């Protein structure tokens, strides 16, 4: 933000910055919270950055509806098509490297080079996942040699609507690392961005809106984790939940609530307090967590 706080007696600034309004991203559109609320997002030094929308349970509900609506089309798209769509997002991100570097710096307080490295890693991660779209079925599928005259094959299928509690500390790289693996295989997501550092995620939604990602495939809410997450965890039309960004004690409660409709629950592998190292190769775990294996039998005869 090219904005400085003026003290009395200072010379007036050059040009006044036109500040961005940070809204929710639901169903491909940018609504404010239906509650009308917002909250102050500060930089790493505590200075004012922006007012972000403070999502309510109704926003969460609407986001789930949008995600469910988008699921049929997104999961029925060819894998090739999904890969292309995701790759395009990476192209647009690349074009906005400078913007995102500045956002990440302001949010997390990283140095210039560090922030650049984070943005580069985020873009590369997006590209990596895009390339998985048309391969995961081969790695995860199988033709099973059953002991009888049957053709039998297993294929991975997306589980449906995935709620994601994005990592608290890693506002862009961490965000990308939890969202991309869910959607590349055909799931749709409702993501609750980092409570403390939501802005890079919201800027990312601008990229999504101008790429070919269909509305509703990725929905982003900003607000209080403890307030919104329980509504997602207990929602009966959500098929899976990623608890990465939830503190341990909250995560326990969320996992219990998730059991009501037996959501597939992904809990961070690391112990309480320690942050996941997002620079490490992610492996397949986050994609597999939201895939169902379907096995089909058919007799082979004349």
């Amino acid at each position, binding site marked *: 933000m090219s904005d400085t706080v003026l003290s009395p007696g200072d010379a007036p600034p050059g040009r006044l910055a036109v500040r961005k309004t940070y809204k929710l991203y639901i169903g491909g559109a940018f609504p404010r919270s239906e509650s009308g609320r917002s909250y102050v997002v500060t930089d790493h030094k505590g200075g004012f950055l922006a007012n972000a929308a403070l999502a309510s349970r109704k926003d969460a509900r609407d986001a789930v509806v949008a995600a469910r609506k988008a699921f049929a089309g997104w999961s029925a798209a060819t894998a090739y098509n999904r890969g292309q769509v995701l790759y395009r997002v990476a192209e647009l991100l690349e074009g906005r490297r400078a913007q995102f570097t500045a956002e990440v710096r302001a949010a997390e307080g990283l140095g210039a080079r560090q922030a650049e490295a984070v943005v580069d890693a985020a873009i590369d991660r997006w590209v990596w996942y895009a390339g998985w779209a048309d391969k995961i079925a081969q790695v995860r599928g199988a033709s099973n040699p059953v002991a*009888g*005259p*049957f053709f039998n094959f297993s294929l991975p299928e997306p589980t449906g609507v995935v709620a994601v509690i994005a990592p608290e500390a890693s506002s862009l790289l961490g965000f990308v690392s939890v969202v991309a693996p869910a959607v590349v295989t055909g799931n749709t997501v409702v993501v609750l961005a980092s409570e403390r550092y939501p802005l890079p995620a919201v800027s990312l939604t601008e990229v999504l809106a101008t790429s070919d990602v269909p509305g509703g495939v990725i929905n982003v809410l900003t607000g209080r984790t403890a307030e919104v997450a329980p509504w997602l965890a207990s929602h009966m039309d959500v098929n899976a939940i990623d608890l990465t960004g939830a503190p341990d004690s909250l995560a326990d409660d969320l996992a219990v609530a998730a059991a009501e409709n037996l959501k597939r629950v992904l809990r961070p592998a690391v112990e309480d307090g320690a942050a996941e190292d997002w620079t490490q190769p992610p492996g397949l775990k986050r994609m597999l967590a939201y895939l169902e294996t379907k096995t089909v039998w058919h*007799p*082979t*005869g*004349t």
Partner: protein
Amino acid sequence: MSAPVDIRAGAGSSLREFLHGLPGVDQVGAEARAAMLASRSIKTTAKQWALDMAISMIDLTTLEGQDTPGKVRAICAKAKRPDPADPTAPQVAAVCVYPDLAHLAAAEVKGTGIHVASVATAFPSGRTSVEVKLADAKYAIEAGADEVDMVIDRGAFLAGDYQLVYDEIAAVREVVEDAAHLKVILETGELVTLDNVRRASWLAMLAGADFIKTSTGKVSPAATLPVTLVMLEAVRDFRATHGRQVGVKPAGGIRTAKDAIRYLVLVNETAGEDWLDPDWFRIGASSLLNDLLMQRTKLATGRYSGPDYFTLD
């Protein structure tokens, strides 16, 4: 299948549509059902009943180029008295011979109630003119056969000329009239698929068959449980929609009592007990009879028997 289709109007295409419109048969499923029924355990009193019933359903067969009057006399004697040591053993249902020996067979079994089945229509290949086939059938009737086992034209069937196959059966039916009952041999080993077996069964029944028969015994595979299953389903469904009962005869490859009993179980649990009668179910066999007699003896005496105690023919 809803109302009976009148396909005698001669339009070959409606016959084809009907036959191709019959439900398909899943081979794996049909084989599994046949195998499950073959695992039924038929013991003691049930076995006794089944052995006697099987004997009474046999068409004792000799269909060899080298058949002589002597051979035919021998099997007729066996047909009348399968087990010389045991007069309680039932008679068989029929003897089955080539038409030029039917006259002799008829004389031998006269008055016993045993039928004389003669093959006809250029058995076993069926590859000759219609005129020759009809003459063959007529010859069999005049020789005294009261059952005619005809073969269908498999070539025509596989070429899709169902109308020709139908017309030939109908023509033989006409020649045979009420003098004999008509068994139509489908030669399922050459039709190969169970879908074809179903279609050929329906075609034969619509054309007037009294019995549908699996095989000539000259081609392998001959009778099998899955094929017979499909044929039993066909006669069951045909009676339900057309009101006429048609019999089934598996022939060839049925050698042991165990096999025969499996066929009876198949009949019992597929078409039902109305078919558990020599008038509606026959088994075309030759060496089977002795195995049935051996099993029968074992049940009666408790001892395993041996071939020396049963006549070759």
